[in-house]
């Protein structure tokens, strides 16, 4: 496959709260290639959003990157200062947020958001920036006459289109999409997914698509990274992941997705609760809920191993 654009090595992101240290991302390794889409799936609180934000070094306090490297296009982002990070943010790695209703400045015209972003990173005149902003809005399906409208005059779906245009404004290498469709209703969700898929090809960008909804991720991803309790437990190409998933958590998770074609089906769920990351379980973090757990799972943390080519899993059942 193509060349690697992003490599995360041994990343640890902890939140230092009053109650103690929350290990939101704990020893995560993963990589992505240019132009590919990685779906980052996991339950709420599994650390997937924290992982997304840490790539841009935008973890809200009291969160901190404690250890590890984030190598983007040969540069270790953890070594960069704020000023150097600003050159990366928006221009080379950009972000689409979960809630489009609150992600735009309510006092700023839609078009000015785009113009400001373009002019921050590139030496262009206002006229040139406006022209590019109009082209971007056209690409995401917004009429040019809405350039001077304010965010409150837009619906949620339309605002998310604006956020996508903003993320693509400088033709970045990677777009991190943090639950971009979760706050939208189902019909709009599919329109936005379609749009993202089309633009991903048109702009040739890589994407990290974060979602708790495995069916949404399945639509769009080339690769799947499954997160559980701050760790990646399985990482594979999308088709092998859905057909020959290895980790017990993946198995239970996929079984719990309801199938519309089978009637009379009882909803399946995974027994137990996601662990409290203040006091994570010993050994493998999934062992209290795992039907295959053995004594070793309680004692030791399994390594993430490549079982088949490009198919990684973190479980003692595979050696």
């Amino acid at each position, binding site marked *: 496959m193509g060349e690697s654009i992003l490599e995360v090595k041994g990343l640890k992101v902890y939140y230092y709260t009053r109650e103690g240290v929350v290990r939101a991302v704990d020893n995560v390794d993963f990589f992505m290639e240019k132009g590919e889409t990685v779906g980052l799936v996991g339950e709420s609180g599994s650390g997937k959003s924290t992982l997304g934000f840490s790539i841009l070094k935008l973890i809200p306090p009291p969160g901190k990157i404690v250890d590890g490297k984030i190598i983007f296009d040969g540069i270790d982002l953890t070594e960069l200062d704020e000023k150097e990070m600003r050159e990366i943010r928006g221009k080379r790695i950009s972000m689409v947020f979960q809630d489009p209703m609150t992600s735009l400045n309510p006092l700023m015209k839609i078009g000015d958001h785009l113009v400001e972003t373009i002019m*921050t990173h590139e030496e262009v005149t206002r006229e040139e920036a406006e022209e590019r902003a109009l082209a971007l809005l056209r690409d995401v399906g917004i009429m040019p006459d809405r350039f001077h409208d304010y965010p409150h005059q837009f619906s949620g779906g339309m605002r998310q289109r604006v956020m996508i245009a903003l993320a693509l404004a400088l033709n970045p290498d990677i777009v991190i999409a943090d639950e971009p469709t979760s706050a939208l209703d189902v019909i709009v969700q599919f329109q936005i997914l379609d749009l993202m898929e089309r633009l991903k090809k048109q702009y040739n960008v890589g994407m990290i698509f974060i979602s708790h909804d495995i069916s949404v991720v399945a639509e769009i991803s080339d690769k799947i990274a499954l997160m559980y309790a701050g760790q990646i437990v399985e990482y594979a190409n999308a088709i092998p992941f859905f057909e020959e998933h290895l980790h017990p958590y993946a198995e239970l998770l996929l079984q719990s997705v309801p199938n519309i074609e089978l009637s009379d089906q009882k909803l399946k769920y995974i027994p137990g609760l996601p662990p409290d990351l203040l006091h994570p379980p010993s050994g493998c973090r999934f062992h209290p809920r795992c039907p295959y757990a053995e004594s070793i799972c309680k004692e030791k943390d399994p390594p993430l191993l490549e079982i088949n080519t490009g198919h990684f899993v973190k479980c003692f059942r595979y050696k």
Partner: protein
Amino acid sequence: MTSLRIYVVRRILLAIPTILILLTIVFVVMRVAGDPVSAILGGHAPAEQIERIKEQLGLNKPLYVQYLEYLWQLFHGDLGRSMIWGRRPVLVEILEHFPATLELSISAFIVSIFIGIITGVHSARNYNKPTDHMLRLYGIVTYALFIPWIGLILQLIFGVYLGWLPTSGRIDTLMEPKHITGLYVLDSILTLNIPSLISAIRHLILPSITLGIYLSGIYTRLTRSNMLEILRKDFITAAKARGLPEDTIIYKHALKNAFIPILTMMGLQFALLLAGAVLTETTFSWPGMGTFLAERIFYRDYTTVQGTIVFFALLVVSVSLIIDILYAYIDPRIRY
């Protein structure tokens, strides 16, 4: 018509009942507050003289006629005549003293906003660090200070010990610029009178800082808390994720959003500004409305006091009207 224009017209129409209620309250309070006739004549005047004065002042007519006449006069811009010193029109007297107060208020207002916003933003940027704690203390302490005390301290340091600045009056004797607006700084600029300008500014510094410091604390605290709230919003994170420079995010995105409550406070503070100006004026022998009003209350000059209160009330209403229009200008969501 644009939505902004409709909003402005609607807001102006809404100010009319507010003004009517205000004028009625002033009328009622002035009738309750005491007897102007005995204030003029003293307690033991003969009955026919009392009747004559009552007739002169229109106090012998039924109350509703007095009320309507009072409104009718105000409607024509007539605030009545003073009861003492040659019965000069109240409006003329007010207009003589008001420019001094306006000049002091404007510059104190600018000083307070400037100090308040800078300290507030700085405090929020350094959230929970020593700078933040110091500035929060500043915000509380200044609010508890007494204006004449701040004034005396400043007079002592900069006027007496250092001798840098004058401690009383508006301008050096015989330096008054040609009267255009009555604001000495503005008039000096308009007539290109540099020595007057310097003298006027030097006299203005201590009183404006006194009043400015007193009023700034509330802006410090308000700016800080609003900035902290806004800086937590998603659109700020989104702006950071687009790589915008920190100053752009703080001043263009955050401060503008945090500004609406600050603007509200400016409107509310306006009444306090006028009250504070009264105290500052007496401390610095500033010949404005405060000194004037205090003097006329002392002499029981009812018509002048009533006229001055009406004048202040109308001023406060107009300022809040202007503030409301500014909201709509800043925040497009308010127009709808």
